[in-house]
């Protein structure tokens, strides 16, 4: 399936784009997606942390992604 991933802040700078399209196996987990991104963009490993959001909620690592999910990479937030 095809996943679209929105990127923000330093993650957008690391990837060089505000959106990423990835080909992923059906029912790929959040943990797998994170591993795939870490391998593809090693600079992500230097971040304090990063999370994945699905449909505006923080997703647990064992969540299985679906093609129409609104996925975003969330580097360490610093609002306020």
């Amino acid at each position, binding site marked *: 399936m095809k996943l679209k991933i929105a990127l923000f802040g*330093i993650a957008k700078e690391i990837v060089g784009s505000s959106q990423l399209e990835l080909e992923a196996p059906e029912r790929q987990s959040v943990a797998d997606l994170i591993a795939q991104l870490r391998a593809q963009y090693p600079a992500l490993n230097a971040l*304090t942390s990063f999370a994945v959001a699905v449909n505006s909620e923080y997703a647990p690592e064992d969540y299985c992604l679906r093609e129409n999910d609104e996925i*975003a990479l969330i580097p360490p*937030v*610093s609002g*306020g």
Partner: protein
Amino acid sequence: MNIHLTDQPIDVAAVLASVQDEGAGAVNTFIGTVRNQSTGRRVVRLDYEAYDAMAVHQMRRVAEQAREKWPMLCQVAIIHRKGRLEIGDVAVVVAVSTPHRADSFAACQYIIDTIKQVVPIWKKEEYEDGSVWVAAHP
């Protein structure tokens, strides 16, 4: 609940007016502004980037959590700015009204502390000689 993300200057007086309540004797307000320095470096300005839909959703959630913890909460307002900010500009305003004052302090502090943990907004500090995404690296 008055929950907004905006790229326009925040009208603090209007935020305060939005939490007025005849049953409330206490209003606590936290205003976060852009400082002229950060970790010893002189800050020239800030850029706030937000994941808009999720940011508003999470701000709303934080307000709802505060209401669960402080059921006596009368009104809540959370307004966060995004885009380019200069020194002294208001980045965020949280205002809550409650019948008695201790609850207004506790609820307001809970909200701003939690916002800083969960709301997807990113601050880039611009210095005279570079810029840094705050908190990105250990």
